């Protein structure tokens, strides 16, 4: 396990509630519970995968970690320093250490800016180069690092395919020499053959530059492939944190089990009985009183509707938020 490794990010009881506008003035104040009491540690050199359905708070969590939006509670420590809700200069310094690669490579590049300039910009803003020439030199090296031709420096984004644009997005993120890369659905918009290229690139860069990743995704097979540990979110809450082998080795949270069972595999091999969840993910404005998953859980009992379970350690390094964490047997 990675307990002995340095802790890059220490997230404690982090919450982000968005007040609902248009609520009645005298009525009770209502909030969207986007991220609710999330705690975890990110160890140096690991890849932590975050999975969950849409609306589970994955992206809000990423934005809160980067201080792009201030949290409403809890704290984030980067290498021991409290960086919760940093603003201005301090936030920029943090973002030179922790960078983000976005989902849509078509939307995240300025169409009127040559890609070389787009990579130079963060280098100059963060004073990683003395002048423009040095920045351009670095940008060419970065293009080569992510598998593009250095002479593509003078081209515009529309001249590139989706996979190449994502490589440019990665080069921009790496331009400030960060320690941690947060990849928010970074391969979801790509075709499968290109997705494999980018996943390999992430692993390659991790080995070469000693990066630490937070990899957010909804495709369980992709997240499993790239991650060392996986955090499962549901309605803003952490339902389970475990090493990959523990998570897929059976005995997981009922929600994780149903995610695994619903994943479509490109194979004709016989598989276990599919757990078909009823209904949709409930509204994060009025999350259920008990366990957040109780309405859709296939093994919910009375207590699940009344009291929310704590995140308890089932075995070393394997945390589950379920009343029956000890009893639930894997259906693998």
């Amino acid at each position: 396990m990675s307990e002995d490794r340095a802790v890059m990010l220490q997230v404690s009881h982090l919450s982000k509630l968005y007040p609902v506008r248009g609520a009645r003035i005298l009525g009770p104040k209502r909030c969207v519970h986007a991220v609710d009491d999330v705690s975890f540690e990110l160890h140096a050199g690991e890849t932590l995968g975050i999975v969950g359905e849409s609306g589970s708070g994955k992206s809000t969590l990423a934005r809160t970690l980067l201080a792009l939006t201030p949290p409403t509670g809890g704290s984030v420590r980067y290498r021991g320093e409290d960086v919760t809700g940093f603003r201005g200069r301090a936030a920029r310094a943090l973002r030179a250490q922790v960078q983000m690669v976005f989902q849509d490579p078509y939307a995240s590049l300025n169409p009127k800016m040559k890609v070389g300039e787009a990579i130079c910009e963060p280098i100059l803003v963060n004073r990683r180069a003395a002048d423009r020439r040095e920045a351009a030199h670095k940008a060419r090296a970065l293009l080569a690092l992510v598998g593009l031709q250095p002479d593509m420096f003078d081209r515009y984004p529309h001249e590139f395919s989706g996979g190449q644009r994502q490589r440019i997005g990665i080069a921009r993120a790496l331009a400030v020499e960060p320690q941690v890369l947060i990849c928010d659905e970074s391969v979801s918009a790509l075709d499968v053959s290109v997705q494999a290229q980018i996943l390999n690139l992430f692993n390659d860069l991790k080995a070469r530059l000693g990066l630490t990743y937070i990899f957010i995704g909804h495709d369980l097979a992709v997240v499993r492939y790239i991650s060392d540990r996986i955090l499962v979110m549901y309605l803003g809450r952490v339902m389970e944190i475990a090493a990959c082998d523990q998570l897929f080795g059976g005995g997981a949270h009922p929600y994780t089990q149903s995610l695994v069972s619903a994943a479509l595999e490109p194979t004709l091999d016989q598989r276990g009985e599919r757990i078909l969840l009823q209904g949709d993910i409930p509204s994060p404005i009025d999350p259920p009183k008990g366990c957040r998953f109780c309405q859709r859980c296939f093994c919910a009992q009375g207590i699940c509707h009344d009291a929310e379970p704590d995140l308890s350690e089932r075995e070393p390094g394997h945390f589950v938020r379920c009343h029956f964490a000890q009893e639930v047997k894997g259906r693998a």
Partner: protein
Amino acid sequence: MAVIEFIDYSMGFQAQDGSVHNLIDRLSMKVEEGRALGIVGESGCGKSMASLSVMRLLPHGAVVQGGQILFEGRDLLQLSEAKIGGIRGNKITMIFQEPMTALNPVLRVGFQIGEALRLHHPDMRRDEVERAVIEALDQVGIPQPRARIHQYPHEFSGGMRQRVMIAMAMINRPALLIADEPTTALDVTIQAQILDIMKQFKQSGGMVVVTHNLGVVAELCEEVVVMYAGCAVERGTVHAIFRHPRHPYTVGLMAAIPTLSSPKTPLKTIAGAVPAIMDFGVGCRFAQRCEHCQSICRTQRPPETWLDEAHVVQCWQACGAAKGDA
């Protein structure tokens, strides 16, 4: 009997100077009653254009270059606009990827579902239409359909909207249902629910499922066509394609997908990207990215080779190998 059959169908796009760039090149495939055909491929391979061709809903600038699309013995491409209007939404229906953009936000859901009935069966009474709509919603698993028909699309979740789309597509009991990326916009647990519903409807007619997800094909289809840059590079039964893929593109595609049991070694990739429509070349359209590429691959289009009665491949290498086997 085949519900729908493509025979050497070709289409392309007209450039500004009047020249036509070919996209779909001599596509042949058919769907049998009660079976589902999956069309898989990456973006830009022409899979959506193939399905829109059936509906005669090709976008502006698209040109049919040849071939036939037979439905109930008639060539859909030759029918008048009035005749195709009687088939579209009635005997052939379609489910689109994004249910929010496919539904009209200012009309009640019940009205929109009933529209297909009122249009194609003008003699139906209002209460008959309403009863049919409620029954259709009930069949796709929407609770309290009697109340739901008076609601608007924004009051439905993503999965519920896709159920509405299915109800709308199924209400005239079509002979052919075309689903274009039916679950791509949905979460995995909802995707499983929708595929379950679609499976139930397979018995009543033929189905074409357009998708980039080989998992959806494995789940839903009996037959599959793998498209690359407008060519059906490999087609056959799901069993033949998944167990014994022969085209280098199919093999590469399968190897590139991480699964829940794949080892964490580097993934196999296909170098490069899909060529643009102007750069298809005269030979095999996959030649630039193929690791088995030979000189003939760059100069001549490979013919369709029947490996057995359930497996066809367009590849020079497989073609030569097939001769060697015989």
